[in-house]
């Protein structure tokens, strides 16, 4: 509906049209912001509620049955668990705003210090893996798309789709274990733990990137094949552009908008994927920390890391939506 409205308006005078464009952007920005805030609220509330949803006394659970009762009581008091729920919630929100995430039950360090210390390792792992996946997947998908366009490469298509489905199904931590076996145990070429040297990044990044690269290249291929059938590609050919320009200049940007939506999902999945891969490679990031904190019942740390992961996901999704809107202005309207 909005499309028709805007194209009708486009035939009218200029100021009206510009205003309409601005309004489309504004509506998009407001709606997107609204969704971000709502999701953020749900996330914050869930991470607050987590500690209260645990059956029994979390502090007793954390300190163990042998801990003296007065220590448990003191801890409870320090955590504010004896206050009314609403004021605890208010305190929690206030803490978040001021950057106070509480104190680790096991190390007694401020949780924000723990996060600050561990976050960079996780972030660099996720970003590198994402870049690696995109760098491989887009050229691969485009090439496969061109090779398997209508009436071409039936066999190549079958081989590619089958192998990419299989590769995409293998979970990242199993790839990790396989890589450890091959390059660490058997060949001894690459370090399999920690992140001290640049070469230590290789295997973890690879484990994380392989699956998403397979998924993404599949999507790029399918999109390329359908875009190559589009009328505007024929127009581009009719302009007698060199084939490379037709594929990369006209087909690719239209194929990528759909792939970008998938990138968002993949990047969020990758944030979560780091948890497992970090544990395979003893990576000193948030993933190893959250697992050990869950096992030692260090709830403030767990709460904070869940929050960080969640925010990472929300930011990713928002960035992807905005990028989509910039690349393809119609996506602003299409959204609802």
């Amino acid at each position, binding site marked *: 509906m909005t499309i028709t409205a*805007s194209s009708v308006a486009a035939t009218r005078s200029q100021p009206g049209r510009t205003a309409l*464009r601005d309004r489309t952007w504004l509506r998009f920005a407001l709606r997107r912001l609204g969704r971000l805030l709502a999701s953020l609220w749900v996330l914050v509330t869930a991470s607050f509620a987590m500690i209260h949803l645990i059956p029994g006394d979390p502090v007793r659970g954390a300190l163990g049955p042998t801990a003296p009762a007065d220590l448990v009581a003191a801890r409870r008091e320090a955590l504010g668990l004896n206050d009314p729920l609403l004021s605890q919630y208010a305190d929690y929100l206030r803490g978040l705003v001021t950057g106070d995430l509480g104190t680790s039950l096991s190390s007694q360090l401020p949780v924000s210090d723990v996060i600050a210390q561990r976050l960079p390792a996780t972030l660099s792992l996720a970003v590198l893996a994402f870049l690696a996946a995109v760098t491989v997947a887009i050229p691969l998908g485009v090439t496969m798309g061109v090779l398997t366009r209508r009436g071409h490469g039936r066999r190549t298509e079958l081989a590619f789709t089958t192998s990419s489905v299989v590769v995409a199904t293998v979970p990242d931590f199993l790839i990790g274990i396989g890589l450890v076996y091959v390059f660490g145990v058997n060949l001894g070429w690459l370090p399999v733990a920690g992140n001290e040297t640049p070469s230590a990044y290789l295997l973890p990044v690879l484990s994380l990137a392989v699956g998403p690269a397979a998924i993404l290249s599949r999507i790029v291929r399918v999109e390329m094949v359908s875009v190559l059938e589009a009328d505007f590609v024929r127009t581009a050919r009719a302009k007698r552009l060199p084939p490379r320009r037709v594929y990369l200049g006209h087909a690719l940007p239209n194929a990528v908008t759909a792939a970008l939506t998938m990138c968002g999902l993949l990047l969020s999945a990758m944030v979560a994927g780091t948890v497992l891969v970090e544990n395979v490679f003893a990576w000193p990031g948030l993933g190893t920390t959250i697992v050990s904190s869950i096992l030692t019942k260090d709830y403030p740390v767990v709460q904070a890391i869940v929050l960080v992961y969640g925010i990472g996901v929300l930011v990713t999704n928002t960035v992807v939506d905005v990028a989509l809107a910039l690349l393809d202005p119609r996506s602003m309207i299409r959204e609802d």
Partner: protein
Amino acid sequence: MHDGDRRWRRIVGTPLGLTATVLVVAVLAMAVLGPVLWGDTATAVDTDDILAPPSAEHWAGTDNLGRDILARVLVATRLSMLLALAAVAIGVSVGIVLGSAPFLLGRRSGRLVSAAVNIAVAFPGLLLALFFAVVFGVGATGAVLAIGLSGAPVFARLTQTLVAGVAARDYVSAARVAGVGRVRVLFRHVLPNIAEPLVVNATIGAGGALLSFAGLSFLGLGVQSPAYDWGRLLYDGAAAIYVNPASALAPGAAVLLAGLAFNLLGESVAKGFGVPVIGDVRRRVRPGRAGADPGPAATDDHADGTAAEDVVLDVRDLRVTFPGPAGPVRPVRGVTFDVRRGEAVGIVGESGSGKSLTALAVSRLVDDDGTVEASRLAFLGEDLRADGGAAQRRMLGTTLAMVFQDPMTSFNPTQRIGRQLAEVATTHLGMGRREAMDRAAERLDSVRIADAGERVRRYPHELSGGMRQRAMIGMGLMGTPALIVADEPTTALDVTVQQQVLDLLAAIRAADGVALMLISHDVTVVGEVCDRVLVMYAGRIVEEIPAGDLATAAQHPYTRALVAAVPDMATDVDAPLATITGRPVEPADVPTGCAYAARCPLADARCRAEDPPLEAGPRGRVACWHAGEPLPAPDSSRPAEDLVETR
């Protein structure tokens, strides 16, 4: 169920589907039998033989208590499967409840639920699983709940979509109107109809749950010792990977195989139960035999032998062939014509007559699975039968302009109009960006687009259809065209806009001496704009005639039928509209003799046996044994079939 059987056979018929089915059956059998057969071996402790590498006795070696790893992996099948299935059951049930909430609760409260689902879906499953693992505590029960609930949002979203689709159907509305309660409608009418996709997705979900569970157990958050599933074995094995790699690889392989099996089975079932994916459905040319093809047309000679300089386009015996599953198909079967400088030539015919393909062939734009052959195909003297590389591209890019049917889809939606026009100049004329953009604005102005300097910054969707078609013409004017090939340029436009576009084409032609090749199914349009008209039927030209003679002096019965089918002011409004009976010929199934014989009122035995050649007459050319003979009185009792094109 008959139908279901066939679909199952199709799934098992594919190599992937068969492999997946066999694997799933094997995994399920192992889940039942594993603990019975190897239960004792798996728990037998042998402290003399700990962490042993693979041997004849222990194929995958032993663990830190000397237990046989292979036996443990096989036995663990049951627990791993049970946990995964339990998690999927939880995920699907909660998903269905949440997903049908909008249907049960009505719009307002339903919206709240679906908003919550939408937020939850955005978070990756593993993150949700970690959250729930904390809440429910570390251990198998907690992990089942965690993985089950973390899968719920996805199933809720799926259910919601499926329910919304079914709820709009008539029988559901009818049941609602009849006063049947929502819950009853849901169970009676809605859920049974969405069961199939839900089951398929649950199968895929089982594979996912299996892998997630392995992940959680691998992190030490799932199954706890002494119980063991594949993930737990992986956890122990990974620690011992340097001592006995098999202790990690064996459970890893098991997880992978089982997870893959369920995933692939689900995907194959989804594919098999859905619309069959056949690459050929969208093919322009329908597949079929080419046996009926009479081969290259008998030399329809050129109208007059002049190969003068003012011939812009010279086409002789043009044939276009596509591969088909039952042999090649030839939708254009020997077409000969020319277009002179400044001349407007129209090509009319029904869909499938080969007129658009002829236009694409003379512009070197046939998709590259098609083969274009001709004894001569020259544009401005350049042989277009061979790919002339960059030089030919430049020549065509600046002198041959194309206008396509649908201006809505013929522009790249992600680029501004100006850039798409300017590209011609930057690519072929060596202009800079600025200069090219100025030229684009100037050309838009020349095709009567007001405010052109501002419009170049617009995206295609911001212009109206008529404006886009004019911009497309403007794009053709970026060079100095000698020929504009316009394939149904007005078909997709509003009637009021059609005339503007035709006027514009006529004006350009008059002003710059550009030749025009106008392809249309509409005799009126062609007759109005063109000097000369080529009538195509079944991939050949059946008549060439000056446009002015169309109404009065058409020779071929087909041309006359086309003209008669157009109502004018003198048409009796009470009489049924004149139509051409019968169906157009399929390119894959061209009969011997005259292709039009089956529909022709003048057809006789000779027409059905011998294909009439295209022969020059006093004012044009015609291919008919009975050219110009009077038609019998129209038989109004014959079934009417519309001539209106459906493309």
